[in-house]
Protein backbone atom coordinates (compact mmCIF):
# COMPACT_ATOMS: atom_id res chain seq x y z
CA UNK A 1 0.00 0.00 0.00
CA UNK A 2 1.17 3.45 -0.83
CA UNK A 3 2.53 5.42 2.10
CA UNK A 4 0.41 8.34 3.16
CA UNK A 5 1.95 11.76 3.74
CA UNK A 6 0.16 14.69 5.39
CA UNK A 7 1.15 18.13 4.17
CA UNK A 8 0.38 21.01 6.53
CA UNK A 9 0.86 24.54 5.20
CA UNK A 10 -1.37 27.59 5.23
CA UNK A 11 -0.26 28.43 1.69
CA UNK A 12 -2.39 26.41 -0.78
CA UNK A 13 0.18 26.93 -3.54
CA UNK A 14 2.85 25.29 -1.45
CA UNK A 15 0.56 22.43 -0.51
CA UNK A 16 -0.15 21.90 -4.20
CA UNK A 17 3.53 22.02 -5.16
CA UNK A 18 4.62 19.57 -2.48
CA UNK A 19 1.64 17.33 -3.30
CA UNK A 20 2.63 17.29 -6.95
CA UNK A 21 6.17 16.21 -6.06
CA UNK A 22 5.04 13.46 -3.71
CA UNK A 23 2.21 12.18 -5.88
CA UNK A 24 4.66 11.88 -8.77
CA UNK A 25 6.63 9.52 -6.55
CA UNK A 26 3.57 7.43 -5.81
CA UNK A 27 2.73 8.69 -2.31
CA UNK A 28 -0.83 9.20 -1.16
CA UNK A 29 -1.20 12.78 -0.01
CA UNK A 30 -3.51 14.41 2.52
CA UNK A 31 -3.53 18.17 2.98
CA UNK A 32 -4.30 20.53 5.85
CA UNK A 33 -4.22 24.31 5.56
CA UNK A 34 -3.41 25.33 9.12
CA UNK A 35 -1.92 24.10 12.38
CA UNK A 36 -5.22 23.25 14.03
CA UNK A 37 -6.53 21.39 11.00
CA UNK A 38 -3.17 19.68 10.59
CA UNK A 39 -3.24 18.38 14.15
CA UNK A 40 -6.79 17.08 13.67
CA UNK A 41 -5.93 15.32 10.44
CA UNK A 42 -2.73 13.88 11.83
CA UNK A 43 -4.71 12.27 14.61
CA UNK A 44 -7.58 11.17 12.37
CA UNK A 45 -5.60 9.79 9.45
CA UNK A 46 -2.41 8.67 11.17
CA UNK A 47 -0.15 9.32 8.17
CA UNK A 48 3.24 7.71 7.65
CA UNK A 49 4.93 11.11 7.65
CA UNK A 50 4.02 14.77 8.10
CA UNK A 51 5.49 17.63 6.10
CA UNK A 52 4.86 20.56 8.45
CA UNK A 53 5.24 24.28 7.78
CA UNK A 54 6.66 26.27 10.69
CA UNK A 55 4.97 29.62 10.22
CA UNK A 56 1.23 29.36 10.28
CA UNK A 57 -1.14 31.97 11.68
CA UNK A 58 -3.43 29.83 13.83
CA UNK A 59 -0.95 27.38 15.35
CA UNK A 60 2.65 27.23 14.30
CA UNK A 61 4.55 24.12 13.26
CA UNK A 62 6.60 24.02 16.46
CA UNK A 63 3.42 23.81 18.55
CA UNK A 64 1.89 21.14 16.33
CA UNK A 65 5.11 19.14 16.44
CA UNK A 66 5.39 19.44 20.21
CA UNK A 67 1.84 18.28 20.74
CA UNK A 68 2.18 15.25 18.50
CA UNK A 69 5.54 14.23 19.92
CA UNK A 70 4.15 14.49 23.45
CA UNK A 71 1.45 11.95 22.61
CA UNK A 72 2.42 8.27 22.73
CA UNK A 73 -0.02 7.41 19.95
CA UNK A 74 1.54 9.79 17.44
CA UNK A 75 5.10 10.09 18.63
CA UNK A 76 6.32 7.63 16.01
CA UNK A 77 5.08 9.64 13.03
CA UNK A 78 8.16 11.27 11.46
CA UNK A 79 7.87 15.01 11.05
CA UNK A 80 9.74 17.06 8.47
CA UNK A 81 9.57 20.78 9.23
CA UNK A 82 9.49 23.30 6.41
CA UNK A 83 11.02 26.60 7.42
CA UNK A 84 11.30 29.98 5.82
CA UNK A 85 14.82 30.32 7.16
CA UNK A 86 17.11 31.30 4.36
CA UNK A 87 20.13 29.08 4.08
CA UNK A 88 22.78 31.77 4.38
CA UNK A 89 21.56 32.77 7.81
CA UNK A 90 23.66 31.24 10.58
CA UNK A 91 22.01 28.04 11.54
CA UNK A 92 22.80 27.82 15.21
CA UNK A 93 19.87 29.89 16.38
CA UNK A 94 17.63 27.66 14.39
CA UNK A 95 19.31 24.45 15.47
CA UNK A 96 19.01 25.60 19.06
CA UNK A 97 15.35 26.07 18.61
CA UNK A 98 15.05 22.70 16.93
CA UNK A 99 16.79 21.06 19.84
CA UNK A 100 14.92 22.84 22.58
CA UNK A 101 11.45 23.45 21.28
CA UNK A 102 10.74 20.60 18.96
CA UNK A 103 11.50 17.02 18.40
CA UNK A 104 11.08 17.21 14.64
CA UNK A 105 12.92 14.50 12.77
CA UNK A 106 14.28 16.72 10.03
CA UNK A 107 13.84 20.15 8.53
CA UNK A 108 14.23 21.87 5.16
CA UNK A 109 14.19 25.43 3.99
CA UNK A 110 11.49 26.66 1.66
CA UNK A 111 11.42 26.52 -1.28
CA UNK A 112 12.47 22.90 -1.30
CA UNK A 113 14.41 21.14 -4.01
CA UNK A 114 12.08 18.34 -5.18
CA UNK A 115 14.85 15.73 -5.42
CA UNK A 116 16.19 16.56 -1.94
CA UNK A 117 12.72 16.46 -0.42
CA UNK A 118 12.00 13.01 -1.83
CA UNK A 119 15.36 11.75 -0.67
CA UNK A 120 14.84 12.95 2.90
CA UNK A 121 11.30 11.58 3.05
CA UNK A 122 12.49 8.17 1.90
CA UNK A 123 15.10 8.14 4.66
CA UNK A 124 12.58 9.14 7.34
CA UNK A 125 9.92 6.65 6.28
CA UNK A 126 12.32 3.73 6.01
CA UNK A 127 13.53 4.28 9.63
Amino acid at each position, binding site marked *: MAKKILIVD*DDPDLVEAVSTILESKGYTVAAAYGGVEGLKKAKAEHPDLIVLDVMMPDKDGYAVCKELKADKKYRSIPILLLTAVVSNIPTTKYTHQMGKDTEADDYMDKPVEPGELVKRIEVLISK
Partner: protein
Amino acid sequence: MSNLRKVLVIDDEAVIRDSCRRILASDGCEVVTAADGEEGLEAIKGDPQGLAVVLLDLKMPGMSGMQVLEAAGKFNPALLIVVITGYATVDSAVEAMKKGAYDFIAKPFTPDQLCLVVNRALEKRQLELEAEELRAEAARSLRDVATEKSKVRTIINSMSYGIVVTDREGRIVLTNPAASRMLRIESKACLEKPLSEAVGDAKLMEAVQGVVSPKKPEVTTISQEFQIGDSFIRAHTAAVKSDEAEVLGTVTVLEDMTYLLELDRMKGNFIAMVSHELRSPISAIGQNINLILDGVAGDTTEKQRHLLMRAKKRSKGLLDLIADLLEISKMEAGVTMQCKEPLQVEEVVRTVVELMEGEARTKGISLATELHHSLPPVLGDRDNLERVFTNVLSNAIKYTPAGGKVVIEVCSDGDYVKTVVKDTGIGISQEDLPRIFDKFSRIKSEKTRGIVGTGLGLFIAKGIVEAHLGSISVESEEGKGTSVTVLLPQKTG
Protein backbone atom coordinates in the same frame (compact mmCIF):
# COMPACT_ATOMS: atom_id res chain seq x y z
CA MET B 1 5.41 107.46 54.10
CA SER B 2 3.91 110.87 54.93
CA ASN B 3 0.58 109.34 55.83
CA LEU B 4 2.22 107.58 58.76
CA ARG B 5 2.00 110.95 60.45
CA LYS B 6 -1.48 111.85 59.36
CA VAL B 7 -3.54 113.37 62.19
CA LEU B 8 -7.25 114.14 62.26
CA VAL B 9 -8.43 116.90 64.58
CA ILE B 10 -12.11 116.85 65.49
CA ASP B 11 -13.17 119.97 67.42
CA ASP B 12 -16.03 122.40 67.13
CA GLU B 13 -13.80 125.32 68.07
CA ALA B 14 -12.03 126.73 65.03
CA VAL B 15 -9.28 128.18 67.24
CA ILE B 16 -8.35 124.78 68.58
CA ARG B 17 -8.45 123.24 65.09
CA ASP B 18 -6.24 125.95 63.64
CA SER B 19 -3.73 125.93 66.47
CA CYS B 20 -3.51 122.16 66.40
CA ARG B 21 -2.96 122.21 62.67
CA ARG B 22 -0.25 124.83 62.97
CA ILE B 23 1.58 123.12 65.81
CA LEU B 24 1.42 119.64 64.38
CA ALA B 25 2.22 120.69 60.81
CA SER B 26 5.38 122.36 62.05
CA ASP B 27 6.17 119.07 63.80
CA GLY B 28 6.01 117.26 60.45
CA CYS B 29 2.48 115.93 60.59
CA GLU B 30 -0.16 115.99 57.89
CA VAL B 31 -3.24 117.41 59.49
CA VAL B 32 -6.87 117.18 58.52
CA THR B 33 -9.69 118.67 60.55
CA ALA B 34 -13.39 118.17 61.19
CA ALA B 35 -15.75 120.68 62.84
CA ASP B 36 -18.17 118.20 64.41
CA GLY B 37 -18.65 114.55 65.28
CA GLU B 38 -20.44 113.52 62.10
CA GLU B 39 -17.85 115.10 59.88
CA GLY B 40 -15.10 113.55 61.98
CA LEU B 41 -16.58 110.08 61.80
CA GLU B 42 -16.91 110.42 58.05
CA ALA B 43 -13.23 111.38 57.78
CA ILE B 44 -12.30 108.33 59.86
CA LYS B 45 -14.34 106.02 57.67
CA GLY B 46 -13.08 107.69 54.51
CA ASP B 47 -9.45 106.93 55.25
CA PRO B 48 -9.22 103.78 57.33
CA GLN B 49 -5.58 103.01 56.48
CA GLY B 50 -4.04 106.43 56.31
CA LEU B 51 -5.04 107.99 59.61
CA ALA B 52 -2.51 107.51 62.34
CA VAL B 53 -3.95 109.47 65.21
CA VAL B 54 -7.22 111.24 65.92
CA LEU B 55 -7.49 114.19 68.28
CA LEU B 56 -11.07 114.23 69.51
CA ASP B 57 -12.85 116.92 71.53
CA LEU B 58 -15.25 115.28 73.91
CA LYS B 59 -17.65 118.17 74.27
CA MET B 60 -19.16 119.07 70.97
CA PRO B 61 -22.67 120.06 69.92
CA GLY B 62 -24.58 117.35 68.03
CA MET B 63 -22.73 114.07 68.11
CA SER B 64 -20.65 113.99 71.26
CA GLY B 65 -17.02 112.98 71.46
CA MET B 66 -17.98 109.85 73.39
CA GLN B 67 -20.32 108.80 70.60
CA VAL B 68 -17.65 109.39 67.99
CA LEU B 69 -15.22 107.40 70.12
CA GLU B 70 -17.58 104.46 70.33
CA ALA B 71 -18.43 104.47 66.63
CA ALA B 72 -14.81 104.88 65.58
CA GLY B 73 -13.75 102.06 67.93
CA LYS B 74 -16.26 99.77 66.31
CA PHE B 75 -15.13 100.75 62.87
CA ASN B 76 -11.40 100.49 63.48
CA PRO B 77 -10.26 99.17 66.88
CA ALA B 78 -6.65 99.85 65.99
CA LEU B 79 -7.18 103.56 65.53
CA LEU B 80 -5.40 105.65 68.14
CA ILE B 81 -7.65 108.27 69.55
CA VAL B 82 -6.48 110.99 71.91
CA VAL B 83 -9.34 112.79 73.60
CA ILE B 84 -9.29 116.49 74.37
CA THR B 85 -11.19 117.24 77.48
CA GLY B 86 -12.22 120.76 78.31
CA TYR B 87 -13.17 119.99 81.89
CA ALA B 88 -9.82 118.71 82.89
CA THR B 89 -11.78 116.24 84.87
CA VAL B 90 -10.28 112.86 85.46
CA ASP B 91 -13.72 111.22 85.27
CA SER B 92 -14.49 111.88 81.65
CA ALA B 93 -10.91 111.05 80.71
CA VAL B 94 -11.14 107.71 82.50
CA GLU B 95 -14.49 107.02 80.84
CA ALA B 96 -13.00 107.80 77.45
CA MET B 97 -10.03 105.56 78.12
CA LYS B 98 -12.41 102.78 79.11
CA LYS B 99 -14.16 103.24 75.81
CA GLY B 100 -10.95 102.68 73.92
CA ALA B 101 -9.19 106.03 73.77
CA TYR B 102 -5.46 105.75 73.76
CA ASP B 103 -4.63 108.90 75.72
CA PHE B 104 -6.05 112.24 76.75
CA ILE B 105 -4.94 115.82 76.86
CA ALA B 106 -6.56 118.52 78.93
CA LYS B 107 -7.50 121.94 77.69
CA PRO B 108 -5.80 124.30 77.71
CA PHE B 109 -2.59 122.67 76.52
CA THR B 110 0.75 124.02 75.38
CA PRO B 111 2.20 123.20 71.95
CA ASP B 112 4.85 121.05 73.62
CA GLN B 113 2.25 119.05 75.49
CA LEU B 114 0.29 118.50 72.29
CA CYS B 115 3.36 117.44 70.40
CA LEU B 116 4.40 115.09 73.16
CA VAL B 117 1.05 113.32 73.28
CA VAL B 118 0.65 113.11 69.53
CA ASN B 119 4.18 111.90 69.00
CA ARG B 120 3.77 109.24 71.63
CA ALA B 121 0.67 108.02 69.82
CA LEU B 122 2.42 108.23 66.46
CA GLU B 123 5.31 106.20 67.81
CA LYS B 124 2.97 103.57 69.11
CA ARG B 125 1.25 103.52 65.79
CA GLN B 126 4.61 103.12 64.08
CA LEU B 127 5.60 100.26 66.35
CA GLU B 128 2.27 98.57 65.84
CA LEU B 129 2.69 98.79 62.10
CA GLU B 130 6.19 97.36 62.29
CA ALA B 131 5.06 94.54 64.56
CA GLU B 132 2.24 93.79 62.20
CA GLU B 133 4.64 93.70 59.26
CA LEU B 134 6.92 91.29 61.12
CA ARG B 135 4.01 89.06 61.96
CA ALA B 136 2.92 89.06 58.31
CA GLU B 137 6.44 88.25 57.21
CA ALA B 138 6.73 85.38 59.65
CA ALA B 139 3.39 84.02 58.49
CA ARG B 140 4.51 84.37 54.89
CA SER B 141 7.72 82.45 55.36
CA LEU B 142 5.92 79.76 57.30
CA ARG B 143 3.48 79.51 54.44
CA ASP B 144 6.39 79.32 51.99
CA VAL B 145 7.95 76.45 53.88
CA ALA B 146 4.65 74.66 53.91
CA THR B 147 4.19 75.37 50.22
CA GLU B 148 7.69 74.13 49.41
CA LYS B 149 7.06 70.89 51.27
CA SER B 150 3.76 70.33 49.59
CA LYS B 151 5.32 71.29 46.26
CA VAL B 152 7.93 68.54 46.57
CA ARG B 153 5.23 66.15 47.71
CA THR B 154 3.05 67.16 44.77
CA ILE B 155 5.92 66.62 42.35
CA ILE B 156 6.69 63.20 43.81
CA ASN B 157 3.03 62.27 43.71
CA SER B 158 2.66 63.39 40.12
CA MET B 159 5.63 61.39 38.86
CA SER B 160 4.98 58.53 36.52
CA TYR B 161 7.90 56.71 38.10
CA GLY B 162 7.16 54.97 41.35
CA ILE B 163 9.16 56.02 44.42
CA VAL B 164 9.63 53.91 47.52
CA VAL B 165 11.79 55.24 50.33
CA THR B 166 12.73 53.05 53.26
CA ASP B 167 14.75 53.63 56.38
CA ARG B 168 17.88 51.63 57.19
CA GLU B 169 15.83 48.80 58.65
CA GLY B 170 13.80 48.47 55.46
CA ARG B 171 10.62 50.09 56.80
CA ILE B 172 8.66 52.10 54.29
CA VAL B 173 8.94 55.83 54.89
CA LEU B 174 7.41 57.21 51.73
CA THR B 175 5.61 55.95 48.65
CA ASN B 176 3.95 57.78 45.82
CA PRO B 177 0.74 56.80 43.98
CA ALA B 178 2.68 55.40 41.02
CA ALA B 179 4.56 53.06 43.34
CA SER B 180 1.34 52.00 45.04
CA ARG B 181 -0.16 51.26 41.67
CA MET B 182 2.84 49.30 40.42
CA LEU B 183 3.42 47.34 43.61
CA ARG B 184 -0.33 46.95 44.22
CA ILE B 185 -0.13 48.29 47.75
CA GLU B 186 -2.12 50.79 49.78
CA SER B 187 0.28 53.64 50.41
CA LYS B 188 -1.16 54.74 53.77
CA ALA B 189 -1.43 51.23 55.15
CA CYS B 190 2.18 50.55 54.24
CA LEU B 191 3.84 53.43 56.04
CA GLU B 192 6.21 52.30 58.80
CA LYS B 193 5.71 48.70 57.77
CA PRO B 194 8.71 46.63 56.77
CA LEU B 195 9.02 46.36 53.01
CA SER B 196 8.98 42.58 53.21
CA GLU B 197 5.55 42.68 54.80
CA ALA B 198 4.08 45.35 52.53
CA VAL B 199 5.38 44.23 49.17
CA GLY B 200 6.78 40.79 49.74
CA ASP B 201 8.90 40.77 46.61
CA ALA B 202 12.10 38.94 47.38
CA LYS B 203 14.11 40.66 44.67
CA LEU B 204 13.20 44.12 45.90
CA MET B 205 14.06 43.13 49.46
CA GLU B 206 17.41 41.82 48.37
CA ALA B 207 18.15 45.06 46.53
CA VAL B 208 17.30 47.17 49.56
CA GLN B 209 19.54 45.07 51.79
CA GLY B 210 22.14 45.05 49.06
CA VAL B 211 22.54 48.81 49.02
CA VAL B 212 22.27 49.28 52.80
CA SER B 213 25.09 46.85 53.49
CA PRO B 214 26.77 46.27 50.16
CA LYS B 215 28.95 43.21 49.72
CA LYS B 216 31.21 45.32 47.58
CA PRO B 217 31.76 48.97 48.46
CA GLU B 218 31.47 50.07 44.84
CA VAL B 219 27.86 48.89 44.65
CA THR B 220 25.76 52.00 44.83
CA THR B 221 22.74 51.15 42.72
CA ILE B 222 21.03 47.85 42.08
CA SER B 223 18.85 47.62 38.99
CA GLN B 224 16.59 44.69 38.30
CA GLU B 225 13.36 43.62 36.74
CA PHE B 226 10.55 41.69 38.30
CA GLN B 227 6.97 40.84 37.68
CA ILE B 228 3.99 41.71 39.83
CA GLY B 229 0.74 40.31 38.53
CA ASP B 230 0.92 40.86 34.80
CA SER B 231 3.07 44.01 35.06
CA PHE B 232 6.78 44.07 34.43
CA ILE B 233 8.60 46.47 36.73
CA ARG B 234 12.16 47.69 36.47
CA ALA B 235 13.51 48.90 39.80
CA HIS B 236 16.62 50.96 40.55
CA THR B 237 17.52 50.93 44.22
CA ALA B 238 20.09 53.29 45.69
CA ALA B 239 21.24 54.11 49.20
CA VAL B 240 20.31 57.46 50.73
CA LYS B 241 23.41 58.79 52.44
CA SER B 242 24.06 61.60 54.88
CA ASP B 243 26.77 64.19 54.33
CA GLU B 244 29.05 61.91 56.35
CA ALA B 245 28.34 59.08 53.90
CA GLU B 246 26.36 57.21 56.51
CA VAL B 247 23.54 55.15 55.02
CA LEU B 248 20.21 56.57 56.17
CA GLY B 249 17.93 54.42 54.08
CA THR B 250 17.12 53.56 50.51
CA VAL B 251 15.24 55.02 47.62
CA THR B 252 13.87 52.83 44.86
CA VAL B 253 12.65 54.20 41.56
CA LEU B 254 10.16 51.94 39.81
CA GLU B 255 9.49 51.99 36.12
CA ASP B 256 6.55 50.18 34.56
CA MET B 257 7.93 48.28 31.59
CA THR B 258 4.69 46.55 30.66
CA TYR B 259 3.89 49.08 28.01
CA LEU B 260 7.39 48.92 26.50
CA LEU B 261 7.28 45.15 26.43
CA GLU B 262 3.88 45.34 24.81
CA LEU B 263 5.35 47.68 22.19
CA ASP B 264 8.20 45.27 21.67
CA ARG B 265 5.76 42.42 21.24
CA MET B 266 3.78 44.45 18.71
CA LYS B 267 6.96 45.19 16.82
CA GLY B 268 7.83 41.53 16.86
CA ASN B 269 4.38 40.75 15.54
CA PHE B 270 4.82 43.29 12.80
CA ILE B 271 8.16 41.86 11.75
CA ALA B 272 6.73 38.36 11.79
CA MET B 273 3.77 39.55 9.75
CA VAL B 274 5.91 41.22 7.12
CA SER B 275 8.24 38.29 7.02
CA HIS B 276 5.40 35.82 6.58
CA GLU B 277 3.45 37.88 4.10
CA LEU B 278 6.46 38.51 1.87
CA ARG B 279 8.28 35.27 2.28
CA SER B 280 5.36 32.96 1.68
CA PRO B 281 4.49 34.14 -1.82
CA ILE B 282 8.12 34.28 -2.86
CA SER B 283 8.68 30.82 -1.44
CA ALA B 284 5.66 29.61 -3.36
CA ILE B 285 7.01 31.12 -6.60
CA GLY B 286 10.35 29.48 -5.98
CA GLN B 287 8.65 26.21 -5.16
CA ASN B 288 6.76 26.16 -8.45
CA ILE B 289 9.91 27.05 -10.38
CA ASN B 290 11.71 24.19 -8.64
CA LEU B 291 8.92 21.83 -9.64
CA ILE B 292 9.08 22.75 -13.30
CA LEU B 293 12.90 22.68 -13.29
CA ASP B 294 12.80 19.25 -11.76
CA GLY B 295 10.59 17.93 -14.53
CA VAL B 296 7.79 16.98 -12.15
CA ALA B 297 5.40 19.00 -14.30
CA GLY B 298 6.65 17.64 -17.62
CA ASP B 299 9.59 18.04 -19.95
CA THR B 300 11.24 21.41 -20.49
CA THR B 301 13.61 22.69 -23.14
CA GLU B 302 17.08 23.81 -22.23
CA LYS B 303 16.18 27.43 -22.98
CA GLN B 304 13.17 27.21 -20.64
CA ARG B 305 15.35 25.71 -17.93
CA HIS B 306 17.89 28.50 -18.38
CA LEU B 307 15.21 31.14 -17.97
CA LEU B 308 13.72 29.37 -14.98
CA MET B 309 17.16 29.14 -13.38
CA ARG B 310 17.45 32.91 -13.67
CA ALA B 311 13.99 33.34 -12.13
CA LYS B 312 14.92 30.96 -9.32
CA LYS B 313 18.09 32.88 -8.57
CA ARG B 314 16.23 36.18 -8.44
CA SER B 315 13.51 34.87 -6.14
CA LYS B 316 16.22 33.44 -3.88
CA GLY B 317 17.77 36.92 -3.91
CA LEU B 318 14.46 38.36 -2.72
CA LEU B 319 14.32 35.88 0.14
CA ASP B 320 17.84 36.86 1.12
CA LEU B 321 16.84 40.51 1.02
CA ILE B 322 13.89 39.90 3.34
CA ALA B 323 16.13 37.99 5.72
CA ASP B 324 18.66 40.85 5.67
CA LEU B 325 15.99 43.49 6.23
CA LEU B 326 14.62 41.58 9.18
CA GLU B 327 18.14 41.26 10.53
CA ILE B 328 18.71 45.01 10.19
CA SER B 329 15.41 45.89 11.84
CA LYS B 330 16.38 43.63 14.74
CA MET B 331 19.87 45.11 14.83
CA GLU B 332 18.57 48.67 14.81
CA ALA B 333 16.12 47.86 17.57
CA GLY B 334 19.15 46.69 19.56
CA VAL B 335 17.65 43.31 20.32
CA THR B 336 20.31 41.14 18.75
CA MET B 337 23.09 41.55 21.30
CA GLN B 338 21.25 39.67 23.97
CA CYS B 339 23.42 36.66 24.61
CA LYS B 340 27.10 37.50 24.69
CA GLU B 341 29.28 34.65 25.84
CA PRO B 342 33.00 33.85 25.72
CA LEU B 343 33.68 32.51 22.24
CA GLN B 344 36.61 31.14 20.31
CA VAL B 345 36.61 33.02 17.04
CA GLU B 346 38.45 30.22 15.27
CA GLU B 347 35.61 27.83 16.17
CA VAL B 348 32.97 30.21 14.89
CA VAL B 349 34.94 30.61 11.68
CA ARG B 350 35.33 26.85 11.33
CA THR B 351 31.55 26.36 11.57
CA VAL B 352 30.97 28.99 8.89
CA VAL B 353 33.63 27.55 6.61
CA GLU B 354 32.04 24.10 6.85
CA LEU B 355 28.74 25.68 5.88
CA MET B 356 30.21 27.46 2.85
CA GLU B 357 32.46 24.67 1.59
CA GLY B 358 29.77 23.26 -0.68
CA GLU B 359 29.14 26.60 -2.32
CA ALA B 360 32.87 27.14 -2.90
CA ARG B 361 33.30 23.69 -4.37
CA THR B 362 30.37 24.18 -6.74
CA LYS B 363 31.99 27.37 -7.99
CA GLY B 364 35.41 25.75 -8.31
CA ILE B 365 37.07 27.90 -5.67
CA SER B 366 39.55 26.56 -3.17
CA LEU B 367 38.77 27.46 0.42
CA ALA B 368 41.73 27.36 2.83
CA THR B 369 41.93 28.17 6.54
CA GLU B 370 44.80 29.15 8.78
CA LEU B 371 43.33 28.95 12.25
CA HIS B 372 45.75 29.58 15.08
CA HIS B 373 45.22 27.51 18.21
CA SER B 374 44.62 28.53 21.82
CA LEU B 375 43.63 32.06 20.94
CA PRO B 376 42.17 34.22 23.71
CA PRO B 377 38.34 34.20 23.77
CA VAL B 378 36.19 37.17 22.76
CA LEU B 379 32.88 38.15 24.31
CA GLY B 380 30.28 37.82 21.61
CA ASP B 381 26.97 36.60 20.31
CA ARG B 382 27.57 33.39 18.40
CA ASP B 383 24.74 33.80 15.89
CA ASN B 384 25.71 37.35 15.10
CA LEU B 385 29.40 36.60 14.65
CA GLU B 386 28.52 33.64 12.43
CA ARG B 387 26.49 36.07 10.43
CA VAL B 388 29.47 38.43 10.07
CA PHE B 389 31.81 35.72 8.78
CA THR B 390 29.10 34.19 6.59
CA ASN B 391 28.51 37.55 4.93
CA VAL B 392 32.20 38.25 4.43
CA LEU B 393 33.00 34.74 3.20
CA SER B 394 29.94 34.63 0.97
CA ASN B 395 31.10 37.89 -0.67
CA ALA B 396 34.58 36.45 -1.19
CA ILE B 397 33.16 33.37 -2.88
CA LYS B 398 30.65 35.38 -4.90
CA TYR B 399 33.17 37.83 -6.29
CA THR B 400 35.95 35.34 -7.00
CA PRO B 401 35.90 33.69 -10.42
CA ALA B 402 36.22 29.91 -10.83
CA GLY B 403 39.74 28.63 -10.14
CA GLY B 404 40.32 31.35 -7.57
CA LYS B 405 41.30 31.03 -3.96
CA VAL B 406 39.86 32.23 -0.64
CA VAL B 407 41.99 32.10 2.50
CA ILE B 408 40.71 32.70 6.01
CA GLU B 409 43.19 33.39 8.77
CA VAL B 410 42.41 33.82 12.46
CA CYS B 411 45.17 35.00 14.77
CA SER B 412 45.89 37.12 17.82
CA ASP B 413 46.73 40.80 17.25
CA GLY B 414 47.50 42.83 20.36
CA ASP B 415 44.32 43.12 22.41
CA TYR B 416 42.32 41.80 19.50
CA VAL B 417 41.54 38.58 17.72
CA LYS B 418 42.06 39.23 14.03
CA THR B 419 40.26 37.46 11.21
CA VAL B 420 41.36 38.10 7.64
CA VAL B 421 39.39 36.84 4.65
CA LYS B 422 41.50 37.15 1.53
CA ASP B 423 40.37 36.33 -2.00
CA THR B 424 41.78 36.41 -5.50
CA GLY B 425 38.55 37.90 -6.83
CA ILE B 426 37.63 40.79 -9.07
CA GLY B 427 38.48 43.38 -6.42
CA ILE B 428 36.93 46.76 -5.71
CA SER B 429 37.89 49.99 -7.42
CA GLN B 430 39.28 52.89 -5.37
CA GLU B 431 36.12 54.93 -6.09
CA ASP B 432 33.83 52.22 -4.79
CA LEU B 433 35.86 51.32 -1.74
CA PRO B 434 34.58 54.12 0.57
CA ARG B 435 30.94 53.16 -0.02
CA ILE B 436 31.43 49.46 0.54
CA PHE B 437 29.82 49.46 4.03
CA ASP B 438 26.83 51.61 3.05
CA LYS B 439 23.30 50.26 3.09
CA PHE B 440 22.36 48.82 -0.30
CA SER B 441 25.79 49.48 -1.71
CA ARG B 442 26.50 47.13 -4.58
CA ILE B 443 29.26 47.36 -7.10
CA LYS B 444 27.71 47.50 -10.55
CA SER B 445 30.06 46.50 -13.32
CA GLU B 446 30.27 44.10 -16.20
CA LYS B 447 31.88 41.54 -13.94
CA THR B 448 29.24 41.70 -11.19
CA ARG B 449 26.23 41.65 -13.50
CA GLY B 450 25.40 38.00 -12.97
CA ILE B 451 25.85 38.09 -9.19
CA VAL B 452 22.78 38.27 -7.00
CA GLY B 453 23.16 40.16 -3.74
CA THR B 454 21.25 42.41 -1.40
CA GLY B 455 23.85 45.09 -0.83
CA LEU B 456 23.27 44.68 2.89
CA GLY B 457 25.80 42.02 3.81
CA LEU B 458 28.71 44.26 4.78
CA PHE B 459 26.40 46.86 6.30
CA ILE B 460 25.06 44.19 8.65
CA ALA B 461 28.54 42.84 9.31
CA LYS B 462 29.79 46.30 10.26
CA GLY B 463 26.82 46.89 12.56
CA ILE B 464 27.45 43.62 14.38
CA VAL B 465 31.21 44.05 14.64
CA GLU B 466 30.82 47.56 16.03
CA ALA B 467 28.28 46.35 18.55
CA HIS B 468 31.05 44.02 19.71
CA LEU B 469 33.38 47.04 20.04
CA GLY B 470 35.45 45.73 17.15
CA SER B 471 36.24 47.04 13.72
CA ILE B 472 36.03 45.85 10.13
CA SER B 473 38.08 47.14 7.22
CA VAL B 474 38.56 46.34 3.56
CA GLU B 475 41.63 46.52 1.35
CA SER B 476 41.34 45.81 -2.32
CA GLU B 477 43.00 46.09 -5.67
CA GLU B 478 40.89 45.87 -8.77
CA GLY B 479 41.49 42.68 -10.68
CA LYS B 480 43.74 41.22 -7.99
CA GLY B 481 41.57 40.55 -4.99
CA THR B 482 40.08 41.78 -1.76
CA SER B 483 41.05 41.35 1.86
CA VAL B 484 38.58 41.94 4.69
CA THR B 485 39.91 42.28 8.24
CA VAL B 486 37.70 41.86 11.31
CA LEU B 487 39.12 42.83 14.69
CA LEU B 488 37.28 41.70 17.83
CA PRO B 489 38.46 42.73 21.30
CA GLN B 490 39.72 39.94 23.53
CA LYS B 491 37.57 39.19 26.54
CA THR B 492 39.06 40.99 29.51
CA GLY B 493 39.13 39.69 33.06
